């Protein structure tokens, strides 16, 4: 059996709802003798799974079910409240890439900024800059400040950098929802190439066909729990049923 690269055991995560949070020195000082109840939201509850070397694992679930939080925990961006995450290989997260650039810098400087954050050396980045720009189809706009980019162009650039910075494990959030058909096809081809080369993948998508096509196994997350784990096609079908049931319930007239 292939070795485990990620082991997640009994992970739980709770957030304080921002509206009930004291956020300023003034609020803390004024409310010192008047404790305000903190509203907490449990996003993940005892989630356990493992990812093995060379495996492609899909993660599905409705909005707010905890997928993005789980990816950030596995990527080491968020700490856990309880449970354990063991990561035995180098991870490249590809998360929230459509947003957050330095708008005052051009594409080349932003490539260096994002690439070094993702673990590439400057030498590697300089050698790969042309390839990154070509992948994103942005060669003509290499010296244009990011403030002038459309959201689609910025997202393409981000995915091009991230797909070049890959290490042993890739964690991808809705990666095939960006760009036009040509860009999507290039992303999908790169994904296949990396998978074939033995990289492990953890892929989040709302699209059942994407999970069924690109993943070996999948998890269905619902209300912070793993509702179902198994073959990717089975999980994708169950997710579709879940959406159909939800649509039927919301379409039903309310009894008085």
């Amino acid at each position, binding site marked *: 059996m292939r070795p485990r690269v990620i082991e997640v055991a009994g992970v739980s995560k709770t957030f304080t709802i921002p509206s009930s949070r004291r956020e300023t*020195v003034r609020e803390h000082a004024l409310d010192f003798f008047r404790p305000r109840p903190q509203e907490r939201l449990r996003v993940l509850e005892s989630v356990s799974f493992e990812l093995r070397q060379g495996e492609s694992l899909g993660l599905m679930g409705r909005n707010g079910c905890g997928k993005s939080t789980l990816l950030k925990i596995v990527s080491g961006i968020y700490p856990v409240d309880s449970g*354990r995450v063991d*990561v035995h290989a*180098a991870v490249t*997260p590809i998360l929230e890439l459509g947003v957050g650039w330095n708008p005052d810098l051009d594409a080349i400087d932003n490539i260096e900024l994002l690439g*070094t*954050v993702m*673990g590439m050396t400057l030498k590697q980045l300089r050698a790969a800059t042309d390839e990154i720009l070509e992948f994103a189809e942005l060669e003509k706009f290499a010296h244009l400040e990011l403030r002038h980019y459309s959201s689609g162009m910025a997202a393409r650039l981000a995915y091009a950098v991230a797909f070049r910075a890959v290490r042993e494990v890739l964690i991808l959030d809705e990666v095939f929802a960006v760009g036009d058909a040509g860009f999507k096809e290039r992303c999908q081809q790169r994904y296949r190439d990396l998978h074939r080369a033995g990289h492990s993948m953890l892929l989040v998508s709302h699209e059942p066909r994407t999970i069924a096509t690109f993943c070996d196994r999948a998890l269905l997350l619902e209300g912070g729990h793993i509702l179902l784990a198994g073959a990717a096609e089975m999980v994708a079908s169950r997710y579709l049923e879940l959406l159909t049931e939800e649509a039927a319930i919301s379409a039903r007239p309310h009894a008085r």
Partner: protein
Amino acid sequence: MVSVAITRVRQGHAPFAGLVWTLIRTDFKTRYHGTIGGFVWALLKPLTMFLVLLAVFSYVFATDPQYKFDLIIGLFLYEFFQESTKAGLLSIRAKGYLLTKARFPSWIVVVTSASNAVITLIFFSLVLLMFLGGSGRAPSITSIALYSAYQVLFFAIVTGFSLAASVLFMRYRDLNQVWEVVTHAGFFVAPIIYPIGILPERMHAYLYAWPPTPIILFSRSVLLDGHVPSLIAHLLLLIETALVLGVGALIYRLRAPRVAEEL
């Protein structure tokens, strides 16, 4: 019962040197619009200020030729303190878009945030040394070495304040306004516009507890008087620096793991 832990393998030699250089370079480029002209223009501000103060106080306090240098050194060092701690306080919020994308130590963005202020300080120091040399008051090599060492300690102090303030700012969103008031008040605590001798000696210990004070006084002492402060004074400065850096690092260490959630 499950343990609370995230364990990771070493992910190779992280290219932090490349990240540090890129953050410094891009901050510089953003501030100076990526042009040498922009950089020169930005340096003209402290240079003009230097010349104006020199001209005005050569005339106003003509009877005390040292006062203008005391004032200029105090003003510029305090300006460095204000500018770099403000940048440090805002650093994690400003670079939040990087911290939510990948895992890397956020202290790197805090420490590199002072780079522009450091560049200005180096430029000011060179201008000051050249001016002192040109006016026949060239400091000795020992004085220049000590002055440089004080600036390294000042950077450590600024780092301590910045580490604490950057993570606390994520929890206290008006901390920047509070810090602005503190540094404005601190301007009058540090003996910048007045000589420390006009205050009773029993108050000096309180003034020295405000970290810019010993740095400013020691810098003036070695550059202008050629007088090296005592060993005890240096030890106290080292303890104060270690304390600020240590407490700052401790606060950072306690709060940093959760900053990505607060962005």
